[in-house]
Structure formats: C-alpha cells, structure tokens
C-alpha cells in the first residue's frame, strides 16, 4: 500500500480525533492533544518524503534545485505567525527520538529552522523503515516499479491552501507533475499549524 496514502489516512484520522476532543467532556486533554500532534507531524513528514521520492523518480534530479527557493517563498513571505509556528515545529524534532530513520531526508536540515517544507532534502535513501506503513513490495521499492501519479489533493483538506497562495501571490515553478503532490503536502503543513495552534490555545 502506498506510503503516502497511509500517511494521509493517519493524518485524516488524527485531525478528526483532534476536532472530536474539543467537544469532549472535561475539555481538551493536553497530553492527548500533544500525542495527536506528534503523530500528525510524523505523518506529514512521512507524506512529504513519500511525495518527494515520487517526484524524484518522475522528474529526475535535474529539477530539484528550484524546489527549495519556492518553498522558501511560501514560508518566509508568509505572515509572521506561520513562520513562527513552523520554526517551532522544527525545533522539537532534533530532540525527538523519532528523528533518525523516518525523517532521514529531514534530519540533515532540521537544524535550519527555516520551516518544515524546507527540511526536505534529498538523499539517496528511502525513508521507509517504519514497520507500520510498509508496502507489500517494499524490498522492490528502489527498483523498476513505476509509481503512479501522486493522488489528487485529498478533499478533506480545507481550502486554506488556496487562500494562502492567493495572499502570497507566489510564482509556482514546475507546476505540472508536482502540483498535486506539493499542494497536498503544503496543506498538510497548514493543518499541522492548526494542531499546534490547538495546543497553543491551552
């Protein structure tokens, strides 16, 4: 099963749990919300890395460089709150014991607090060491198995993504082929912002 689809599913489950806990008797539980946000962050990172792995396969390494400044454009020109939150998202990651295998593409950049999107660096390795989301043909991952197109942006995601890109008036490079994947990924970032704000509301 596709790692990115699994990560998306976990994200959806986490978001619904987070929203459901608002209506819970006794109020939102800080511990539970924290664990949910940890899972969401991991799922988001997993999704990003799975997306990027697909991109890499589809487009080849020649197109990698323009990606980073574009993400920067989104992150650094965003309003201060977004940047601040993304910085704080990255900070805990070096301390997290989860960092090494799953976030391998991220780990080399986790020190640079430029925002979660930017932490996507490209290493030669797949990230899939987690047993949870192992696809049935995992030994063949590196091989010739052709990846399908990244799926359409999930429809459960709010339209914040559209609003942000309108606000920032960003120029998108290399829209085709990567559009759906990146859009969904960025929307994940937005949703993780929401989860962090949920905790900040305590």
């Amino acid at each position, binding site marked *: 099963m596709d790692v990115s689809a699994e990560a998306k599913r976990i994200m959806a*489950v986490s978001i619904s749990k987070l929203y459901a806990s608002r209506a819970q008797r*006794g*109020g939102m539980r800080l511990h539970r919300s924290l664990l949910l946000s940890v899972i969401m962050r991991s799922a988001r990172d997993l999704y990003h890395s799975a997306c990027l792995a697909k991109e890499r396969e589809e487009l080849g390494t020649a197109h990698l460089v323009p990606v980073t400044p574009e993400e920067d454009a989104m992150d650094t020109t965003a309003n201060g709150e977004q940047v601040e939150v993304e910085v704080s998202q990255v900070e805990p990651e070096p301390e997290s*014991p989860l960092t*090494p295998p799953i976030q391998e593409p991220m780990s080399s950049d986790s020190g640079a607090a430029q925002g979660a999107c930017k932490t996507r660096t490209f290493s030669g390795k797949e990230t899939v060491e*987690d047993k949870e989301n192992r696809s049935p043909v995992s030994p063949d991952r590196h091989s010739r198995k052709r990846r399908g197109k990244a799926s359409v942006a999930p429809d459960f995601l709010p339209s914040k993504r559209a609003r942000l890109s309108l606000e920032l008036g960003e120029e998108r490079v290399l829209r085709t082929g990567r559009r759906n994947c990146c859009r969904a990924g960025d929307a994940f970032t937005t949703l993780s912002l929401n989860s962090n704000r949920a905790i900040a509301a305590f």
Partner: protein
Amino acid sequence: MVGVGRLVREGVRGSEQARTSRSHDSVSSFHRPLARVHNPTNKPGNRARIPLAMAGAGGGSNDVQWCFSQVKGAIDDDVAEADIISTVEFNHSGELLATGDKGGRVVIFQQEIENKSQPQCRSEYNVYSTFQSHEPEFDYLKSLEIEEKINEIRWLPQKNAAQFLLSTNDKTIKLWKISERDKRPEGYNLKEEDGRYIDPNTVTALRVPVFRPMDLMVEASPRRVFANAHTYHINSISINSDHETYLSADDLRINLWHQEITDRSFNIVDIKPANMEELTEVITAAEFHPHQCNTFVYSSSKGTIRLCDMRASALCDTHSKLFEEPEDPSNRSFFSEIISSISDVKFSHNGRYMMTRDYLSVKIWDLNMENRPVETYQVHEYLRSKLCSLYENDCIFDKFECCWNGNDSVVMTGSYNNFFRMFDRGQRRDVTLEASREGSKPRQVLKPRKVCADGKRKKDEISVDSLDFNKKILHTAWHPQDNIIAVATTNNLYIFQDKMN
C-alpha cells in the same frame, strides 16, 4: 491481624522489617502500618522463602495459585458511564479497599474479621461506606465542564480511630474523613428520641443522658477541599512519608500541599514552556519516595523519569537524576514515540526501585542507575504490529497502571480482553490471568491464559484478532501484606486470593 499472621508463617523475618522502619524515625508517635509490612531485601536467598505469587504451571509447593474470591458491580453488559471504575487503592493495612468511579463516587470495602469456622476462606470484602466525593462543575471562565471522575485515591496513614483519604478529580483534591459511629446518646431531658423538643413545663424529673449502642454507621465527611491550584488536569496525588505534606501533579506542574492548609500550595515543578507551541512533553505521573521525604519522581510523555530532591532548591525544575533508556532502533515505528509515554510510576515498598508502565511494557529501574532499567517485561508485545489499528480505535491512549506486591517480588499490570499479567522478578516467570464472570465460582482457581501472536493457535489459546479491546484492565491493586489482589474491569471489581493449602 490476618494478613501479617500468614506472612510470618511463610518466613518473612521480623528483623528485616525493623531495618526498614528505622530509616524514618521522624514520626514515631503512632503505629505505622509500614513497620509491619515488608521484607525489604531482594537477595536471592530470601526470595525462595517468599510465597511466589504465580499461578502454578504445575510448579512446586511454593507456587501460589490464584482463586476467585468476589466480584462487585453490576452483571449486565450495558455499562452506565458513571459506573466505570477509575481508581482502586488498598489502605496501608489492607483492611480497606477504596474504588472511585467516573460518576465521582467513592466506594470503600472492608475486610471482615476472619471466620474462625472456615479457616480456608480468607475474609471477604463488604461495602463499608459509599459517598459522592466530587460533583460535575463548570468553569465559567473557560466555558469548560470539569469532570467528576475520580482520578486517584490515596489513603493517609492511620493516626486515630478514623480513616482519612485524599480523592481527586481533574481540578480539586478533597480530604475525606471516614469514621464509625456505634453509640449514640439517649435520655435527654429536653429532647425526644426523634429530636422533637419537649416542653420544659412537662418535665417532672431529671436524668443523665447515657451512650447506648446502635447499629454501626459509617460517616464520610469532607474535611478539606484543595481547589484552584491546577490549570491543567490532575493526574496524580502522592502522600509524603513525613505525614504532613502531599503533592499533586497535572500535565505541566507539580504542587506541594500541607494536609491542613487549603488556601496555599507551593509549586515545585513547572515545565510549561514560555511558548506553548514549543511544548514537547507533559508530566504523566508523580510519586513521593516511600521513605525519603525530600525525594519524588515524575514521569513524562516522552518516556523519561526525573527524580528530584526538594532540598536542592525550592523549584525542582532541575532534576537530580534523569532515567531514560535509549530507544531500540530495531523497534522503531511510526508510533514508537507515543507508546513510550509512561502511564504510571510506582516506587517499590523498599524504596530501592521504581516501576514504570508504558503502552507495551513494564520496566523496573534501580534508583542508582539512570541509563537503563534493570528489568523489562513485555506485557503484550503482540500488539506492536497492531499499533495503527489501536491508534484508530483510541486504545493506544489507554493509561495502564501497575503495582507491586507487598515484598516487591512480583509486579502486576493489566491488559486487554480483561487479562492481567503478573511478573515474578525472582523466578523470571510471568502469567496471564483473566477476570471474567466465567471464572467466578467461589474459590475457583484461575487458569493461566495465553495469547497466540502468530497464526498457529493451539488449543485454549486466544488469537490476537479475537481479543476484545473494549474490555481493558487499567487499574489493579495488591494488598500490602497478603496475596489478595483487586482487579477492576470496566465496571466490575474482582477480588482474587491465593489458594490456601
């Protein structure tokens, strides 16, 4: 006392008990149950004589077999939410057993005096007192309802005829006094027996009122209410060995109280970050050391335990010791960060060890070694491959408790399908037992259960997929001196005892 008598027969030495009690000379004016209790050593030589609280797998005469004794609670499957048991605690002598539920009620059971005609039976626990400890409240400022669920009950050491306990919900701790009344004054001159006043003009003779026996009445009255000290949800309370103070811990802070003073508490730990968005861990449990009144520990959602010494500074944000085991990279998975969250921490009775419970395992730590636990026991390792489903059905957030037996030789914790597990530290054996109505004939011996992780299921084994994850045992308690255990399923309390040979 029933329990102590049996332990003496089974070889616990009195001199070792005295060594334990000498260490806390601070309070000696009254009898402390601790002094009677524990064989503090874990030396191999002593262990052989201590009854092994394991269901005999065809073992020798030393093996203890667990039998059903009693079950309390409604039989029907339709569980009212208010009846869900949320905490179980024996008092220091083991004579009283308190349970708290989601509806804010506390029910106390008392062990009856042993029936001389039937020496095979230990006495039963019967209801002693029931009272409503906490009511639902509403925080108008935050527009939040405050649940009345009792999160924890802790008994105070007995000082006089009355019993005292602390019970807490998410926000407020209450000190309850439970006292007996078995006499009442009769023969007033100006008052009838039912309380109506007599017209003084009709009184022709005077008499002195006297106390006459009456039916035993157990009264519970709130003596102190400790409120408004916690912004977050209280998860633990722990009474200090100085018998004057206690601590209460919520997600981010730990407060120190004096038992007599309700309008003031001292904050001794505060891990709230300046920016809440930088929050990475919360406090999940806290406990005072059983003998050192300056020492306490608190566990975190990241799987670490910090030991703090209150003599070092007023604010114990800096730990004296940090207990953390490096993660096993081969066990790394998507959910491994959240299953490392510690749900319970308990000191051993002798104060040399502490036990922590995370989602899949129980770990025993030597207080002198911080870099890894001395023992690790897998509770239900077969769930490791099911973590994704357990996340979806919320079971991964279940907070299991754990407990020691009286002499620290066996530890116990709960699992799913109404199973509970015991680990014998000395014998390196473990057993899985089930709390169910099917096994509930009087003195019926519990049969060990086995969960089959792979597909090759043997007879009498249960496969992982047929486990009922709605039947979870989160709360267990062990009598401090005897082989009697209280195991709480969702809304029933089971009491098991060892088979008397």
